C-alpha cells in the first residue's frame, strides 16, 4: 500500500499544475495594396497552455483556410501564396512565467510556424484584462511576408506591402 501511495505521490508531482484553454479568438491579418486595404479574419484558433513548475507552455493553432476576407478569390490566392494546402496550419508557441498572467502587459517571445517557415518574434507586447477566471489578451504581431519567405502577391502588377500585422484578440480560461 505504501509503495503505491508513494508512486501516486511522485507521479502527481510531475503532473501538469494547471492548464489554460483558449475559449474565443479573433485573429485578423491586414494587407496593404496601393489601390486598397484588405483584412482576413479567423475565429477558428484553438489553444492550450500547460503550466508546470512556474512555467506555462502555450500552443495556439489556426487553419490557414479559415481566414475570411469577404472575397473568396482573394482567400484562395492567400492560401496559394502562403502554401496553405501544403502547410495548412499556423502555429504559435510561447513560454511564459505563470506570474505573467497577473500582469496587465505580457511581453512574449513567439515562435510562429507558417507557410513552411518558422519565425521568431521577440518581446511582443500583449495587453491583459482579467474578468473573473478568464483573461482577455490583445496585441499585434508585427509579421512581414519576408519573415515567412512569402512572395508578395500582386494585383494589376502592383505588389502588396511587406508588412502584414496580425491583430490578436483572445479569451483564455484557467482549468
Amino acid at each position: 500500500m505504501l509503495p503505491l501511495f508513494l508512486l501516486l505521490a511522485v507521479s502527481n508531482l510531475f503532473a501538469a499544475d494547471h492548464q489554460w484553454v483558449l475559449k474565443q479568438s479573433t485573429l485578423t491579418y491586414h494587407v496593404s495594396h496601393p489601390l486598397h486595404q484588405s483584412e482576413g479574419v479567423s475565429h477558428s484558433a484553438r489553444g492550450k497552455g500547460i503550466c508546470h513548475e512556474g512555467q506555462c507552455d502555450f500552443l495556439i493553432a489556426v487553419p490557414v483556410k479559415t481566414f475570411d476576407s469577404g472575397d473568396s478569390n482573394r482567400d484562395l490566392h492567400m492560401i496559394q501564396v502562403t502554401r496553405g494546402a501544403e502547410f495548412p496550419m499556423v502555429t504559435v508557441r510561447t513560454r511564459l512565467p505563470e506570474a505573467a498572467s497577473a500582469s496587465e502587459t505580457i511581453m512574449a517571445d513567439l515562435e510562429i510556424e507558417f507557410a513552411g517557415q518558422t519565425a521568431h518574434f521577440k518581446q511582443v507586447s500583449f495587453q491583459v484584462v482579467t474578468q473573473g477566471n478568464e483573461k482577455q489578451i490583445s496585441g499585434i504581431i508585427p509579421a512581414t511576408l519576408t519573415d515567412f519567405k512569402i512572395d508578395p502577391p500582386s494585383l494589376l502588377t502592383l505588389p502588396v506591402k511587406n508588412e502584414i500585422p496580425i491583430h490578436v484578440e483572445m479569451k483564455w480560461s484557467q482549468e
Partner: protein
Amino acid sequence: MGPKAATLCLAVALILALIASPLRAQDASSTLSGTITDHTGRVVPNVKVSVKNLATSQPAETQANSDGIYTISNLAPGDYEVSVSAAEGANTASVTLAAGASQKVDLVLNVTPPSSEVQVGNPAAAPAATLPNAPSTSKTEPSLEDLGFSKTEIQSNAAQQALLDKRTRMLKIHQRMGLITTIPLIATVVTSLNAGGKSEGTASRDLHVALGSLTGDLYGITAWYAIRAPRIDRTRKRGPIRFHEAMAWIHGPGMILTPILGAMAFEQKNDGEKVHGIAQAHGPVAIVTAGAFGAALVSVSLKF
C-alpha cells in the same frame, strides 16, 4: 439412373454451383482495415482489434501487425462496432460496411476512457479526449493533437497546392491579358467616332476594324485563361468576384455580337448605304460591352 438422368443431374449441380459461388462471395467480401496509433501519432503494434456486428452481435477479432495495421476480412455487410484496447489506451468506432466494400477505420488510442463513438468518414469529428477542453495528455508542452484538430485538417495536400498554383498562374495571365486588352479596346472605341462618319474614305473604318479585331483576339485569350483556370471544390464565391463574373455574362456575348454587327455595318457603309437594320445596334452593343468589361476590371481592382 440412366445416362440421360445422370447428365441432367450433373448439369443441375453445375448450374447450382455457378449460382451459389458468386452469392457466397458477395456475402463475405467486405473488409475492414486500418492503423492503430497512440495520441502522439505513433503506431501501436500487435494490439487486439475486435469488431461486433450490431445486428447479429456476431463478434470477430484480429491482431494488428508490427506496423499497427489490422485487417479483418470476410465480414457481412452491415453496421459494426470496432474497438481496440491496449495498455496505451482504448477507443471504439462505428462503421457501416457495404457489400463488397473495403472500409478503412484508423483508431487513435485515447488515454482517458474510450469515447462512445467516432463518426467514420467525417473529418470534422474528433475523439472526445482530443477536444480542446479535454485535459492535455502531455505534462509539458501541448501538441496539435491536444487541440483536437482532425488529421485531415493538419495533413499536407500537395495535389491541392499544385492545383492552387496552376489556378494562380492562369489567373495572373488572365489579369495581365485583360489589362493589355484594355488598350486596343479604348482605341477601338475612340476610332469609332470617325468610322461611322459620312466620309467616303475607308481608312478610319479600316483602322477601327483592325483595332476591333485585335481587341477581339486578345479578349479571347483573356477569357480562355479565366475559363480554363482550375476550379477549387467546396469554395463558395463571395465578394467582388461575383460581380466580375456577372459582368462576363454581358461582355462575353457582347464581344461576339459586336464584330458581327460591325461587319454588317462595314459592308453597308462600303456599299455607300446608310447603316440600317440590325447593324445599327453595333454602336450601342459595343458601348455596353466595353462598359461591362471596364466594370469587371474595376470591380476586382478597387474596394468600394
